């Protein structure tokens, strides 16, 4: 959808159609004729310039950064992903934040790539630490269960 904004207008000279001072052909017969406007102005006309500007949802350009994505690169020699981890992507200030709501885990970076690297390192550390403890509180026990659905040790 496009809407017209207040158009700028100028007064322009209107000349009669056709050309004056032209020759039918050049001296050699091959040259194109010179084109000169008629010198006598017919009138002045007002010319308006209509500018088309996008309105509504189209006014913001689509972002190349997705709002959601699935994380599939744990990059760890000991652990692998059973399934990709769903992440929400937000921009806070100048930083990109990726969040895994189910496990209350996040990653931060100046770019989406850096935020994903940060998230991967955090999840790896969380998995290691949470499996070191014989006993956990109810919330961490729940996170351990969720982690188990997504991450598994690599078989040797």
């Amino acid at each position: 959808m496009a809407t017209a904004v207040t158009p700028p207008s100028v007064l322009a000279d209107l000349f009669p159609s056709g050309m004056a001072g032209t020759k039918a052909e050049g001296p050699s017969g091959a040259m194109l004729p010179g084109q000169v406007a008629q010198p006598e102005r017919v009138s002045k006309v007002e010319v308006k310039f209509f500018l088309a500007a996008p309105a509504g949802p189209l006014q913001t350009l689509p972002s190349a950064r997705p709002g959601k994505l699935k994380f599939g690169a744990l990059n760890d020699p000991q652990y692998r992903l059973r399934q990709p981890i769903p992440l929400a992507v937000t921009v806070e200030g100048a930083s990109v934040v990726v969040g895994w709501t189910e496990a209350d885990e996040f990653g931060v970076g100046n770019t989406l790539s850096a935020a994903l690297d940060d998230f991967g390192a955090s999840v790896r550390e969380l998995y290691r630490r949470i499996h070191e403890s014989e006993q956990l509180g109810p919330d961490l026990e729940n996170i351990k269960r969720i982690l188990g659905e997504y991450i598994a040790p690599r078989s040797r």
Partner: protein
Amino acid sequence: MDAKAREIDKIIRKLGMETRNTSDLHAWLVYDGVPVIKTRRSFGNSKYVPADKIRCQLKVNEQQFAGLISCDVTKEDYIKILIAKRVIIPKQEQPPADQTPKAPC
């Protein structure tokens, strides 16, 4: 809400959380020998600290989070909050593991 790294460090120190330095500072609240809460912050004071995400990890609302930063909420107060939210279950009343609900943020 904006929280800087030093404010998160202040909370970690106040609550006496166990810390481990890897690529980030990982902190765990241990109660009666059992880890009950985890959080972390990235190194570097200039790195953005997502306060809302850390608040969710600590299982507190915005007012309680502000209290943790400003000293209005003590460690004892915080433990009471976690007990009320069933994030901490005192040992004499621990239910079977499969009946532990996830505490809301």
